């Protein structure tokens, strides 16, 4: 992955393409686009070494708006395209842009396999809990009971939680951010991009047309501090508008919300976040906290190193070549048992 700065510094604007952005006015995707450009500019990634690969859906129009290489592929399959590309081109920085329907419904299989292989790519899942491009059907992350055009009596499916899927696939880097938390989002995107191996980021994104306010509890300034908990490696898990609440593990090995100063609880009782634990159990518990019962964590849940698929594939080829050098075309064609028929035969 080339992170080397170029001679002339690239600006945020340089990463944008000439195409008009055609998301609905007010869509959360605008903010994500802006923060992505900011993160790339911050890293000074050469534009030609960056590739955005998307599936189908509103979010998947993303590549058209970046002046990088891009592929707007087919529904749900972006991780598979990215795997092929990254395997043959280690020099590229490959991003997958996907949505809740794209990644978790039609593309669930590719998502889990890209993650378990640990392909060196960054997957950004824009979660708006609705099908937007097809005009408002419930999605695999829609809450149970969701009334939409296709579920006038309310959906009866239990939703999937993207981070639990990622952790279940043993993702090495798992994070969450929110479309309008611009600074947090830009920092999270950069951290994900710098991670070696699959990095997975869920972004709470508002669809103001078909599912407006889905994340209001996480974005409204008045209430968000009571509903979100910011994860910082090495820091105790505190939150709340007065920053007096926290998380601790109780004797049933469950997370519980406590208030500092009540029932003899002090800061030293709180769980200290460790994103580098090899065991994913704590990250799983954190990802399994759901609003409104719990504050939902944002930030980096897990950040560990695992063997990288594309590196290992190329390493096998390198070793095989070293062990048996001189593999030219003639030796290839003549491998195995051969015999010669001479003219006198």
């Amino acid at each position: 992955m080339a992170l080397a700065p170029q001679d002339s510094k690239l600006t945020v604007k340089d990463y944008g393409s000439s195409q008009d952005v055609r998301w609905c006015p007010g869509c959360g995707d605008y903010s994500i686009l802006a923060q992505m450009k900011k993160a790339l500019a911050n890293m000074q990634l050469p534009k030609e070494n960056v590739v955005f690969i998307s599936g189908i859906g509103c979010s998947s129009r993303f590549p058209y708006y970046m002046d990088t290489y891009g592929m707007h592929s087919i529904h749900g399959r972006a991780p598979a395209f990215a795997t092929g590309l990254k395997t043959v081109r280690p020099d590229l920085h490959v991003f997958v842009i996907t949505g809740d329907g794209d990644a978790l419904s039609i593309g669930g299989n590719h998502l889990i396999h890209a993650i378990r292989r640990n392909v060196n790519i960054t997957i950004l899942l824009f979660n708006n809990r609705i099908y937007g491009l097809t005009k408002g059907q419930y999605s695999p992350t829609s809450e149970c009971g969701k009334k939409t055009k296709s579920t006038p009596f309310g959906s009866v499916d239990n939703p999937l939680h993207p981070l639990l899927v990622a952790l279940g696939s043993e993702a090495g880097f798992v994070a969450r951010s929110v479309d309008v938390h611009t600074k947090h989002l830009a920092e999270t995107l950069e951290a994900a991009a710098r991670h070696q191996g699959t990095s997975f980021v869920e972004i709470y994104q508002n669809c103001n047309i078909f599912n407006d306010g889905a994340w209001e509890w996480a974005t409204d300034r008045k209430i968000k501090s009571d509903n979100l908990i910011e994860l910082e490696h090495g820091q105790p898990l505190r939150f709340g508008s007065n920053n007096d609440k926290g998380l601790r593990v109780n004797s049933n090995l469950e997370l519980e919300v406590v208030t500092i100063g009540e029932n003899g609880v002090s800061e030293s009782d709180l769980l200290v976040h460790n994103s580098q634990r090899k065991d994913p159990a704590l990250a799983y518990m954190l990802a399994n906290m759901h609003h409104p019962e719990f504050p939902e964590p944002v930030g980096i849940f897990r950040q560990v190193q695992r063997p990288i698929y594309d590196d290992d594939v190329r390493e096998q080829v390198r070793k095989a070549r070293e062990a048996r050098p001189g593999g030219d075309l003639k030796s290839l064609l003549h491998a195995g048992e051969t015999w010669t028929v001479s003219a006198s035969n």
Partner: protein
Amino acid sequence: MSSMETVDTAGPQRKVEVIEGATVRFAGDSGDGMQVMGAQFSTSSVIHGNDIATLPDFPAEIRAPAGTLAGVSGFQINFSSQEIYTPGDGIDTLFAMNPAALKVNLADLYEGGLLVVNSEAFTDDGLEKAGYKTNPLEDGSLNNYRVVSIPLTRLNRDAVEGLGLDRKAADRCKNFYTLGLAYWIYNRPIEPTVKWIEKKFAGKSDLMEANLRTFRAGWNYGETAELFTSAYHVEKADIQPGVYRKITGNSALVLGVAAASKLSGKDLFYASYPITPASDILHEVSALKNHGMMTFQAEDEIAAICAALGAAFGGSLAVTGTSGPGLALKMEAIGLGIMTELPVIIINVQRGGPSTGLPTKTEQADLLQAWGGRNGESPLAIVAPATPSDCFTMALEACRIALKFMTPVIILSDGYLANGAEPWRIPEVDDLPAIDAPFCTKPNAEDGFNPYTRDERLARPWAVPGTPGLQHRIGGLEKQHITGNVSYDPKNHDFMVKLRQDKIDGIANDIPPLKVFGDESGDLLVLGWGGTYGSITTAVERARKAGKKVSQAHLRYLNPFPKNLGEVLSRFKKVLIPELNLGQLRTLIRAKYLIDAKGLNKVQGRPFQVAEVLEAIDKALED
């Protein structure tokens, strides 16, 4: 088996009859080593200098219940001092390892043919499993054959006695006893198989010794047992000088795409999901890492084609391989390959369908799927090899076309070609076609880079990520001509649909014209495609020898067709199209050329027999 002369040799019972060729079938339980025996006999025969054609035939189940009809596995080989094109209609010698193998295969044994059976397998239990009410070895039902009944199990155990093998391991060697006997009967060189056993069982000296001993014991049995009136000798075939190897269709496809990778300087990326009968391609490419070849065993068929397209975007020679049901799954992504105009090769080793169908049997029923099984107007190039070794040539061709025209190309092989083997004269590297596939490295417009500009062949430039200044976006939405920006303009769509069609049609200018074998005009043209070449060629040769005005043409390019196809068809009064489907090529030919072509259609999971084609030729000439 046509007897030519008889030669007396030194030993009293060692009479050797010289024959032109023979067809032998080994049949037994799947898992009993029939495929190994067949492969060994084939290798020995080609090294001896014969032309060969083989037909492995095995059940879809890996280990069906032992002794049952469903579990019978067979391997047929036709070997000859003359050039041959098919594994043979019927068989001269049948090795039947148990009653079920006898029951399944006897109908194909010529009257008077040699039948070698393991008498010890004809127990009450064995007979019952095979559905025999009486023992065919005793009830006279085999009187029309030359039956040689040998106590194989005991003979094999005797041969390996003293090596300390348990009974199960000892009995597992018995296929080599049979093979040794087969080598004696047909005077095959034993050295290639001795070497193979030594390599296969290297490090397991007891098993190596056991297999070598029983193999030699089988040969000696033929020499001493006086059960056989004569052995046979098949002269070397008069074949073109050169270095040869035995090759199956699947192996030839592997070598073809690997050679294309070396010739084009593009790394090979082979992405596939295991599926019968295409899995061997994945196995063989994955063994070529020392040649820089990369493989990706994907999570499913769709991921395999998508990863291949991702690799193609990155500048690799991208190939995916599958069989019919897998091709169906890949179609949406192939459409994306057509829209994004990326070079990708899709190998489809056809098998019996629809759905799961007959996984281990051959069929040609995916032509229309390949031709038009996608949404929208979505043309691509289709090639179809005619023989196992032609798989090499057509794989090279598919890669050349894909890279030159920036398009997906489907290769239609089939189960018969995939597993069938023949001798292959290894081409000189210098004789292989150059494959020039340069990347675009510089901006092609004043304002930067336009990814949908065209060269004289209507191919767009291949600009790979990492190239400064050529950043661009591709995708499944319709693109504006030249700029490649998303466009919903009705006239642009109309233009682009026609342009994509014109590009594929233009490949006709870059492929060889269709050749006619036989007279350039006449009463009947037999037009075939793909793996039916051998049967059709043999049938047409025989019909012509009988004075019939029949010619043959075989299509290896199915989209676009060779430019002269219409003109060739017009020179014959009648056209007969034999296919292992219900008439898919015939449908295309009738639609395009408005001729009343007739079909010979069979969907039994087996190749055409020569006699079937001959009969259809006679009928077509009479009608």
